[in-house]
């Protein structure tokens, strides 16, 4: 196996770098900047049962070394994604991961089942952790029983491996991971955003129309590293890590913590070329710190 390649359930990755869900839409915009076939994989924007128009604006704001967002799962609906977005991404010949969202167990099930219609995706990312929608969504991400329930249903409905995306807004992340592992998850992705708020001193109201938003970017990296480190000590599922990654050094930190691959979100907004740059730099960084492959570095930060 090559230095950067890594095999995970359903995902044969030529490198461990993929854009994070919601930060890359369905790839069209970034394909103006570089050939997406360079990526290890791509995670699509969340899909719901029907089209959603999301939250009112403002939906984003800047914070110290981070940002808040409350997009509210805006997307054209799963049918349209299967019809028009998956075929577009297919041309790049990289594994496509579909991010599955919903307000009810039934909606999650429907979305997962609809993705069975295409053979062109590689896995599902079960988004039980979106903090920015009023009904459902976040509940599934903070209650281990509900998380297990929705995982079970989606596993049963889907022909694809299921990676469950964990919310960091919980007291006990290991308990959440164990619950979805027991319910049949094939892997984990973590972390989603931390719930935060910013107030506008002039208007005296929250900047984000939804009031709260999800905090992402380098500010949350220490929380992501801690949670991945803890979870990987208790659960044997592979982890796709994310939260503040900007450089190949950051990627190595996630690998050492226990991730097997990583996703890059907010950093795409700062530098549209960030993913190919990281892929380019990673071999040197691995070598510099004495690793001959990605595989070799996974979990090596455990004391």
């Amino acid at each position: 196996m090559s230095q950067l390649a890594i095999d995970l359930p359903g995902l044969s990755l030529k490198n461990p770098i993929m854009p994070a869900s919601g930060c890359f839409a369905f790839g069209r915009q970034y394909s103006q900047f570089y050939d997406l076939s360079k990526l290890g994989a791509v995670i699509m924007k969340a899909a719901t049962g029907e089209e959603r128009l999301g939250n009112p604006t403002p939906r984003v704001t800047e914070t110290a070394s981070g940002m808040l967002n409350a997009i509210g799962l805006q997307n054209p609906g799963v049918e349209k994604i299967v019809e028009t977005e998956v075929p577009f991404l297919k041309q790049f010949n990289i594994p496509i991961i579909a991010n599955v969202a919903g307000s009810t167990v039934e909606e999650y099930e429907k979305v997962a089942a609809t993705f069975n219609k295409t053979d062109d995706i590689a896995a599902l990312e079960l988004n039980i952790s979106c903090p920015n929608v009023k009904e459902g969504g976040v509940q599934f991400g903070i209650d281990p029983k509900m998380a297990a329930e929705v995982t079970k249903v989606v596993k049963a409905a889907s022909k694809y491996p299921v990676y469950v995306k964990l919310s960091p807004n919980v007291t006990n992340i290991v308990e959440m991971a164990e619950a979805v592992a027991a319910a049949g998850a094939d892997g984990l992705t973590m972390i989603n955003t931390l719930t935060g708020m910013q107030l506008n001193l002039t208007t005296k109201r929250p900047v984000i129309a939804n009031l709260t938003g999800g905090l992402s970017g380098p500010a949350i990296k220490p929380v992501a590293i801690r949670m991945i480190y803890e979870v990987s000590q208790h659960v044997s599922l592979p982890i796709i890590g994310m939260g503040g990654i900007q450089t190949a050094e950051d990627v190595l930190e996630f690998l050492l913590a226990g991730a097997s691959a990583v996703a890059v979100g907010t950093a795409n907004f700062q530098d549209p070329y960030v993913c190919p740059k990281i892929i380019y730099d990673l071999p040197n960084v691995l070598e510099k710190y004495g690793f001959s492959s990605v595989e070799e570095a996974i979990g090596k930060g455990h004391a």
Partner: protein
Amino acid sequence: MQDDQMTIVSNESVARNTYEMVLQSEHVSQTAIPGQFLHIAIPNFTLRRPLSIATINREKETVTIVYKVVGAGTKQLSTFREGVALNVMGPNGNGFDLEINEKTTVLLIGGGVGIPPLHFLGKQLSEKGVTVKSILGFQSQEDIFYENSFKTFGKTLIVTDDGSYGKKGLVTDVISEINDFDTYYTCGPLPMIQAVTKQLAHKEGYISLEERMGCGIGACYACVIPTTIGVDYRKICEDGPVFAAQEVKL
């Protein structure tokens, strides 16, 4: 649209808290159309800042922006000197439709730092032979920039909130003084755009909008605005920032 290192050619105050920055860019200077914007990365800030193109110089291969210091990012931007290289994406967005008959008369209605994109538009249209008239609104005399430049395009009325220069009042107060125009273009604070589009509901018009942005290219759904017809939306960064006056819900 590209993302490049662009070197600052100059960065100087042109009005109160308002700066004009000239950047070296072959790509933008050759391809940009009025209404498009640059998406500028400022070191140590998470998000890029969207700033409209105020003019381009094809020969010198430069692009000019005019920005007001309103927060930490624009403040930082104002400190950079000639020779500093910034990471800049552009040209972003759709821009104004320039397929205009040269016999047309257009009215540009700009407020504050909504004026830069209209400056670029006015320049190109007047070069094409289109008759350009302008109404520019500022808070006060000290805030005025580009007055002479607009005057070279054609008749230009200035209004100020405090009456320290030109007429005292809002841009909408003087639209009636310019009765013969075919199409209008407006950019500025949202309440101004709302008032203008309401007052000129019977006219063909185009507006340029602002919204807080993440990616600036259509990938994050941060900057959407609902359409007036149907349950649909537009992304200001990708489908806009220019829209037909009645296309989106203000």
